Structure formats: C-alpha cells, structure tokens
C-alpha cells in the first residue's frame, strides 16, 4: 500500500468511526468531507491539455487533408485507430483502468500520422500506431512514464522497417496553391524527394536548385513531404494557440529552431529554408514540447532544445539521412533524465553552493 493510500485509509476509517459512534442515524452524505488543502483547483486537466493540443493541430490537419485528399484521411484514421485500440487492449490486458478517454492516445495517433507520408498503405500507420503505444508508452507503464516520445518511436520503427515506403510515398500535391504546376514539374523532374533531400543533393553537387524558391511553398503549401509538413505557417498558428493557453514553453521551439537556423546559415544554407523545411517546425512545436519527455526546469528545456537543434544540424549536414528531427528528439529524450538530474532550480533561501553539497552534508 503506497503512502497516499494509507493516508486516505486513515481519513476514511475516521469518518466511519464517527458514523458508527455518536451519530448513528446520520447518512454518509450528511457528513462533512475532510481533505488536505488546497480546497480549490485550477481549471486545467490532463484531458483538457490533450484536447487543446489536438485543437491546435486541427488547422494543419484540415489543410493537409484538403491538399492530399483521401490518402491523408486514411493514414490519419488508421494511425489513430491503431494507437487507441492498442492502448485499450494493453490496459485491459494489464488489468489497469482503461484511460483512452484522456485523449492522449488519440493525440499520439494524430501526431504520428502527421509525420508520415500521405501515400502509405493503410496497414503501415496502423502498425505504427500500435507500436507507438505499445513500445513507446505502455511498456514503460503508461502515461507519464515513457522515456521517448511515443509518436516518434512509432515513426522510427516504421522508417527503419520499411524505408522504401517511407522515403518514396511523398506525393506531389497538386492542390498546394503556393506553387504553380510548372514549378512542381521542374523540381519534380530533377528530384522526386523532399526539398531537404534535394538540398542534400545540391551540396553533393548532384543538383542545382535555388533554396530560396522553396521558402514560400514550405510556408503556405508544401507539395512535397509528410502530411504535417504541408504548411509551416499553420504549425506556427498551432504553436500560438498552445502558447496563448500556456500549455507549452516558448523556450523549446525557439531554441530548437534557432539553433538549427544559426548552424545551417553558418554553412551557407538559406535560414528560412532551414527553418521551414522538413519536419523541423512540427517537431519543434509539437514533438519536442511533449511534457513527458522533456526536462522539468526552464534551463533544462533550453539545454534540451539546443541539443535537439545541434543533433538535427549534424544529421542534416553530416549523415546520409534526409531528415534529422526525429532522431534528434529521440536522442535528447534519452538524455532528459540526465538533464533533470543535474539542472535543478536553486531552492529559495539556499546559496548557490549549498545545493550540491546537500548529499555530502547528509553523509557526514
């Protein structure tokens, strides 16, 4: 029996005692309730937070469905079905209360779908959703206990297992209104992959393109890439919703994107192209800000996000992967417990020196 339960048991027993002894004819609902302070509560609940993140993702999702058509609907739907049913079945199997009502599985499914190319066969997002919940979350003990971002775990497994599907199912969305058809044809003629991959080929000398021409489509309607990369502007709109609701910390997206932009422009890349291409905006605004897998303190968050940025830059410029956001976030997720261990706020009334030697003091 854990400490909380013991305490509650005590309170319950005491109320029962009073019920039995001198007030025999009093019904339990006539008794006053006792509990520890505070007796009022803020309005935000975990479910409400999940709901707001989903709401923040809705404009992006809707635009993506408009641009990509039914194939995107299939991917999003099967991913959500996969994650929610996996959560339900595993919690049943573990004999713990089923918590699909808290919307966290729905959010995982949606986030996973947004990182996937729109032309995947339906069974892949389904497997991705199941893997995300099973290996990303439930295997650690459920909500709040996972080390890695579940959606990215799902995507990583898919990317490693079926790289052919994952790298070639990007389609050219003809409805993306920011680019004209001629432009699509030109770019498509030289490369069938994402702008980032094209940029990589440019660096290796295989291709000649102007990164600047990509910026406008990346912002307003990117015809190449995953579902959630369709418009960086709508990702920023979603981020603003979350910032206004006080759900995410501004430090993570700012430091993450800022680091990548600075490092990439040192290497001569167009800074706007670096910021808006690939999954960077989606990753920095919705993946890296996942509560469970980033550090608790403000300085910890800064270190975490800067680390994500550095790793993303390294993967983008010094590896043969087309995109580095997913692995950079997963890598820094793994370092989060370590960051939390060393970055602690200075308690009120303690001098800076007295934080660390607390352990030594107790040993003496």
């Amino acid at each position, binding site marked *: 029996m854990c*400490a909380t339960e013991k305490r509650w048991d005590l309170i319950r027993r005491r109320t029962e005692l009073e019920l039995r002894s001198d007030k025999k004819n009093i019904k339990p609902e*006539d008794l006053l309730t006792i509990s520890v302070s505070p007796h009022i509560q803020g309005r935000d609940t975990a479910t409400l937070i999940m709901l707001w993140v989903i709401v923040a993702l809705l404009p992006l999702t809707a635009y993506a469905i408009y641009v990509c058509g039914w194939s995107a609907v299939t991917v999003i739907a099967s991913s959500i079905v996969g994650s929610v049913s996996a959560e339900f079945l595993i919690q049943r199997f573990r004999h713990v209360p089923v918590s699909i009502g808290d919307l966290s599985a729905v959010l995982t499914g949606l986030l996973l779908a947004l990182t996937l190319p729109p032309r995947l066969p339906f069974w892949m997002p389904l497997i991705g959703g199941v893997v995300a919940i099973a290996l990303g979350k439930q295997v650690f003990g459920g909500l709040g206990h996972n080390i890695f971002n579940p959606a990215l775990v799902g995507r990583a497994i898919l990317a490693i297992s079926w790289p052919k599907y994952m790298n070639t199912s990007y389609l050219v969305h003809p409805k993306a209104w920011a680019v004209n058809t001629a432009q699509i044809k030109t770019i498509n003629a030289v490369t069938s992959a994402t702008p980032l991959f094209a940029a990589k080929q440019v660096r290796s000398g295989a291709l000649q393109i102007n990164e600047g021409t990509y910026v406008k489509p990346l912002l307003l309607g990117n015809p190449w890439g995953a579902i959630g990369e369709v418009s960086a502007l709508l990702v920023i709109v979603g981020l603003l919703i979350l910032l206004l609701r006080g759900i995410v910390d501004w430090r993570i997206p700012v430091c993450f994107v800022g680091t990548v932009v600075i490092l990439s422009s040192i290497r001569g890349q167009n800074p706007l192209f670096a910021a808006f291409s690939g999954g960077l905006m989606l990753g920095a605004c919705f993946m890296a800000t996942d509560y469970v897998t980033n550090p608790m303190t403000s300085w910890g968050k800064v270190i975490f996000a800067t680390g994500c940025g550095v790793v993303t830059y390294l993967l983008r410029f010094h590896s043969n992967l087309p995109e580095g956001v997913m692995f950079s976030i997963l890598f820094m997720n793994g370092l989060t417990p370590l960051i939390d261990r060393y970055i602690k706020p200075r308690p009120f009334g303690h001098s800076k020196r007295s934080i660390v030697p607390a352990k030594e003091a107790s040993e003496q």
Partner: protein
Amino acid sequence: MNIAKKFRRRYLVKGGIHPAPMKSTASFVIAPGPAPDGVIIPLTQHVGAQCEPIVEVGERVLVGQKIGDSGEFLSAPVHSSISGEVTGFVRHPHPYGHEVLSIQIASDGKFELSPGVEPKGDPFEMSPEEIRKIIREGGIVGLGGATFPTHVKISPVQGKQIDTLILNGAECEPYLTGDHRLLLEKTREVIQGGLILKRAVNAREVVVAIESNKKDAIEMAQEVGGELGVEVISLPSRYPMGAEKTLIKTVLGREVPSGGLPMDVGALVDNIGTCYAIHELFYKGMPLVERVLTVQGDGIAGHANLRVRIGTLVHDVVEFCGGMVGKPGKLIIGGPMMGLAQHTTSVPVIKGTTGIIVFRGETFFSREPAHFVCIRCGRCVRRCPMNLMPYAFGAFADMSMWQKLDECHIDDCVECGCCAYVCPTKNPLVQLVKVGKEGVVRYRKKMGSYQEED
C-alpha cells in the same frame, strides 16, 4: 530606483498562482458577530506550550480576564471572551484536528468587562521591555493564521537588528477579506499598532504592504501613512504574496536563508489583524478576545465579515449567518488554499481563525484517492514560490523514499498548495509533502540512532 524596485516586485519573485479572488465580501462592513450562550476556549491556540487553567470550575469570569497561562517563554495566555461561569474543563475538538483541553464558560449575557481592562498609557514612552510584557499579557499572537506568539517574535536576539517592519496586508488567499476591511475601517488604529511594534523592536522603517487589487485600501493607507510617516507598498496580486518569505523577498529583495527567521535578514512581518489587536490592547486595554473573520462560500446562506469572540463555536457563527445551504460539503477554517477542512461544526473559533468557508456538497472540489500520476508538465516547478520540485516530492513520498526527499529540500516547502492547485492530474501534492515530511523526520531519527550505535 523606484522603477527598479517595481520591476523587481513584478518579475524577480518567482512562482505563484492567480486563483479566482472570490472576494465578494470586500465591500461588507465588519459586523459584530453572534453573542454566544457559551464559549469553549482551547488552552492551545498558539505555537508553543499549552496553557494551564488558572480559574476554578464554578468561578465567575469577566470579559478580558486571564483564564489560562503558562510559565514557558514560547506561549501566550488565553483570556475569557464573555462574562459568566466556568462550567468545566473538557477535551474538545480543535480546528487543528485533535482534541485539546478547553475551558467551557456559560454566558450570563452581561458581557461585563474585567477591571483589568483599562488603557495601558502611552506606549511611545514605554521601554521595549514594558511593551513586550504588555503584549505577552494581552495574549497577542500572529493573527494571519500561524499564531506565533508576538512577544517572542519581537524579543531581541543577540547580534540581530531589525531594520524594517512589514505590516502584511497582502491577504492573498481567495475568499478572505477581513484584513482588507480592517485596513479600510481602522486604518489609523492598524498603523498605530504597527508603530508600537516598531518602537518595541527599534526598527528604522515601517512598511505597509498591500496587494494591488485592494486599491481603496492602498489609498486609505497612503493617506493615513503619509501623516504618520509610514510607507505603503503595492504588491502584485498573486498567491502566496502574503507568505512571510515571499513577502520579504518582494518588498526588500532579501532572501531569508533556509531554516532561518526573517530576523536574519533584518525584517519583521506582522499581520494587519495583529497590529489592530495591539492597538486595542494599548489604548483600550482589551486583550485578544475577539477577531475579525470572513464567512464565505456557496454553502452558507449569508456572507459577512464578522468580529467574533474567541471560543464561539463555528456552529453558532454558521447559524448566525443563516445556516448551511444544500447538502453539506466542506467546512474550511482559514482560506481555501491553506485552510483546514473540519469534520464537525462544533470546533471553536480560535485566535488563528481567519475565515470560515463552507462549500456545498453538490459543487465542492475534492481529490479522489488515486495513484500518483505525473505527466511531467513542469507547472508545479514553475509555480513553486520556494523554487522546489514538488513533482519529485510527490513521486518520492508515494514510494516512501525518505532519503531522496531529504536531498530535495522538502523542509523548505511551505505547503502553500500552488503545486496541487495547478496540477493537471490533480495529484494531492500537499498531502504527499506532509506524508514526506513525517517520513523524513522518522528517517533522520533512524539514521541518528544508527550513528549512535556505531
């Protein structure tokens, strides 16, 4: 300089929350409370040693007569708040949760004053020792809820000089408006009381600190304070602005060291209600026998600021205000953030009772017993005014890891409840902190005894 100070007040003091103020009684004039048929006066109403009764059963006592006292330094005497006959010494439920030896007095309805109740003379011609003695005899304790004996607080300590006296009018708890009303109606008396304290501790400055949401009180205090040479400071409205350490940091920019006293940084904080009680004691001779409290909440018919005699049963006050409405939910003594929920209405009003708040059974908030679930949102860390990590307290206390708790500085927690208030998964963090503190004490004892064996 002034802008820098304001900036510091606004931004450099970390943490805190903005609960809905719910201060609908702020415009209600302080009314006299019920005239009880009898009172039950607990012999422990303060931090420190319990008093011994100094009256006999059957004896007639008068208003303001001392009925219990202790030889200990850290203690404060108790006085009768009505005139009548002592009918017995009983163990009676106390707002703190246990049963305490209390003196039962039946009223004769006359409220006759004791002959000892007379003005004590000009306090500004007395020596600090005399002032301290009178304050002790008056049974004055901190009326903000902590009930620390005031004469102990103002006793000089070797090598420590108090330069600033802060009169705490923050009243950051939602629902409570007693101090606000006192500041409005008894501005001069409150500040006079503060000046008496200033004389007792030989401080250089007196500062009245009021939260910015009490504009009228700030204006009033500035008007009177200007005459009497007292500075008035507007604090940002944020809970827990009235917590002693937070207040000192906000007003003076000084940080009370962990485990230390305000005196260590040359400050002294006293509540508005305490200052008023000191004024009454010196100019009218009346010891602490009544206090102002707020009756509020959706579970009670009438809301009011009342001047209630100490020892009046909460039951009488509730009936005086029209009784409870709806199904009984929660009865809280104090504010909703730090107050204590009561299991019975038969507890008496004591010196530290700042308010009586009743929530209806249909609507009150209650944490269900559940496992500790943390989604690591970090809100508790951001909101903690003491810069601690409440989520770690919760997790470690739930797993009974006492050594870890000790390393996380659980002793610095003031149990303000900000963390539990903002927690999206509604973890009972304050409760876990209380469990944790007990566990840490046990753990230290155990470790101490091991070391002795070695």
